[in-house]
């Protein structure tokens, strides 16, 4: 093929470049945030950050938290995004061991209680927390004159036979969190506890959606079980997303000692980013009161920033357990597979 005439090709190229530049005057930089699929935020909150920093924020929902972390680890040599949000304390060790985050100590950290700062090197910064708890259908218990169980132990009582639905910890992070609560409470004998639950007719399903919407009698699915492993914030969501105005939530949580497991979600700057300064600003922004006060009604989680004000529905209908179960991320990382296997050996036999 004959090459293009030199002046002609230059002319074409330059006019093309001119067109490109004239189309987008002062093109703002782009900041890409990798998230799990449950991430949500208000438009005007993001807009405020974009306007303040002349940046376009792009979100990349990348599956559930496990899938997202997998993708980030596989692409750590050429990261798909600048910032990743949504690794929780059950996956934190894995992310830190693979060394995918850059260290950054945000000045906003001073407003965050120390109990949430699980990474002393500040590669992963806490953003929100939520408690996985058992929700119960208030009407069922009232109608049947049944006392609501107050602890993990009481769930073994025969009057609760067949009333609890849980998620499989192998396929559901909610299910894993509840398994971890029993591990934290019972130690090595947690398998005996699960054997007792099994004998008492506990129902196991694959994930939260099935458990809550198909099996739980307190939700729209009107299923057969009156207790479900869900979140302490779910009763508030039932009021906010009610079909008609409700003056009270149809569900509530069981808050006994170690009956709930605390999940903390983290954000981090992905190594290899070209937008270091902007990424740091985004972390500060996620910890700011504006973002932290937006989170509860978007994702139904609690802010870690102690200055953030909670919405009214949260204060009224969502409860915070006084003694949630916790395990260190290192302990979880070291034993997670073995615990799940031990659980499966009891439940799936």
């Amino acid at each position, binding site marked *: 093929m004959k090459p293009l005439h030199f002046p002609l090709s230059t002319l074409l190229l330059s006019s093309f470049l001119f067109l490109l530049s004239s189309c987008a005057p002062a093109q703002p930089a782009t900041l890409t945030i990798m998230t799990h*699929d449950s*991430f*949500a*935020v*208000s*438009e*005007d909150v*993001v807009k405020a950050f974009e306007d303040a920093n002349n940046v376009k924020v*792009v*979100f*990349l*929902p*990348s599956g*559930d938290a*496990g*899938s997202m972390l*997998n*993708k980030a680890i*596989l*692409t750590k040599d*050429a990261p*798909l995004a600048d910032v990743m949000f949504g690794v929780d304390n059950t996956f934190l060790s*894995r992310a830190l061991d693979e060394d995918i985050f850059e260290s950054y100590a945000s000045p906003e950290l001073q407003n965050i209680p120390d109990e949430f700062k699980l990474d002393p090197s500040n590669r992963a910064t806490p953003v929100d927390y939520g408690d996985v708890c058992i929700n119960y259908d208030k*009407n*069922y218990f*009232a*109608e049947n004159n049944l006392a609501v169980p107050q602890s993990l132990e009481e769930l073994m009582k025969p009057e609760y036979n067949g009333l609890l639905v849980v998620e499989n910890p*192998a*396929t559901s992070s909610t299910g894993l969190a509840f398994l971890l609560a029993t591990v934290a409470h019972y130690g090595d004998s947690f398998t005996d506890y699960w054997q007792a639950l099994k004998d008492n007719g506990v129902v*196991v*399903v*694959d*994930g*939260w*959606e*099935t458990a*809550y*919407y*198909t099996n739980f*009698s307190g*939700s*729209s*699915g*009107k*299923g*057969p079980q009156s207790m479900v492993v*869900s*979140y302490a914030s*779910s009763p508030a*969501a*039932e009021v906010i*997303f*009610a*079909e008609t105005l409700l003056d009270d939530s149809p569900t509530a949580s069981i808050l006994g000692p170690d009956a709930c497991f605390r999940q903390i979600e983290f954000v981090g700057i992905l190594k290899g980013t070209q937008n270091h300064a902007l990424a740091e600003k985004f972390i500060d922004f996620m910890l700011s009161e504006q973002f932290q006060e937006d989170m509860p*009604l*978007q994702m*139904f989680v609690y802010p870690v920033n102690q200055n953030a004000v909670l919405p009214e529905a949260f204060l009224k209908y969502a409860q915070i357990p006084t003694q949630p179960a916790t395990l260190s991320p290192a302990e979880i990382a070291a034993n997670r*597979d073995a615990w799940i296997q031990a659980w499966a050996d009891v*439940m*799936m036999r």
Partner: protein
Amino acid sequence: MYTGRQVNRETSKHGNKASLYTCVRVYLSTLSLWLLPLTFLALAFFFPLSKILAFTLSPSTLTLENLRNTQHVVLFTFYQATLSTLLTLLLGIPSAILFSRFDFRGKSLLRALTAVPFLLPTVVVAASFNSLFGTHGLLSTFYSFLFPLSSFTLHPSPFILILIAHLFYNTTIVIRIVGAALSNLNPKLEQAARSLGADSLRVWLNVTLPLLRPSILAASLLVFLFDFTSFGVILLLGNSQLSTLETEIYFQAVRQFNLPLAALLSIIQLLCTLAVSILYSKYAIRSTQYASRSTPSRRPKTLKQKLFTTSLIFLLSTFFILPLASLPFRSLTRLEADRGQRSEVQYGFTTDYYKELFINRRGSVFYVPPFQAILNSLTYASATVILSILLGFPAAFALAHPTRLEKILDPLIMLPLGSSAVMLGLGFIITYGKWLASPWLVPFAHTLIALPFVIRALQPAIASIPNRLRQAASTLGASPLEVWKNIDLPILRRATLAAATFAFTISLGEFGATLLISRPEYPTIPVAIERFLSQPGGLNYGQAMAMATILMALTTASILLIEKFRLPNASEF
């Protein structure tokens, strides 16, 4: 009978001098047919998959313990897939006869509705079954109305539920592929057998069934592979006790971070798929006879026919329409238990869920306006139809007249159906990285799944066209394009429609969602449904049902429209 194979044999029988030249020419022409489809498969499938496998596979996973555990999973995967396929054939073949041989009121609608489950998200199907069979579902309400004192309980085992779900999802494959072949059968053969004194059963067993063999095999293969790699159904209904290779790969890769073991399992799954496909290519003799006047469908006449059609229509309606109808019903119903009166569930009519769809109440960045979701879904689906037909036609053409090359390529075509979506998705990530953010890649991912369907739907029909028709046309001076337009296209009308319907529904059902990073700016309807179902609250549930109803209506309308789209008719010559 003229078949591709016989034509080839005849050409090679002609003069020995020309044989080398012919041979080269045939190879070159088939190679040119293969160029586009193979390039596509290499880029979208073989390259990313081999890259992730090479990246993660390690010999240390080849332990005796791992293999022993795997053996159990492999056996169960084969067992459930075989049983599901047989059940699907049992319902699918009579239904194919019903739709291609008989006319009845509401036929197109019923046929379109059988395709709807194929693309509904598993969570929605589970919800619809629940609202039908559940403790507060329609059936139990009805039952307790009839027999107020007895209580209604229906608790099929997880295994039975999986089989039923597979039947619900995949019957449409058999109906479409076998149905297209049935309509193309030469009625003279059956008439001849009947005039020789054979009763209808013998005609069916000795004439029709053998002629249908290629299409039944093609349909069985597709159904089998879909059941074999079944994921959502097993996770959702398996009650966490049953696992297939596909769910095991997901579990190892995403939950346990054991990518080496996941890679090993993917290879085992691919090898199984390959073995099944090779078996298929070996036994599927591609010889159907093309009929210049295809068998017309008519109203049932004899008592036997009336009995057959009525009972089958009743069965299909109960099995497909009842669970599907529960979605629109639920999307318009408020289910409210008055405080303190739990046992009396109050039903009330409401359009709130639909109205709420149009309001971004929480001002979320990820709010999906319903019309935008519909538009995105339709755009992706149309692009998938065009792309998969464009790539599928030349490949099906080459496969219909197989040379040695095709015998090797034939089983490879099916591999995308047998590969784990999780591993392929990870392969895409490490191969194409940041390009994945481009919405253009979505139809490509959907085409990857649609292509085997398009090829398998077209290939038996193309093989049924006698070469003498094409030769006659070229002798009369028609250009190759004119031959294709006037001979092939009219005969392939039904098969092309079936292929297009598959491509369309596969894309609408968002099969590629797990493959790629989805862009929140271009959400589809299934993405919107998942978003609603991921949070508690009656309004969210109702909106998910409303969105699912929209998806259902959209699908039904699109399928009816595709079927209305008539290509030039075959009866011209």
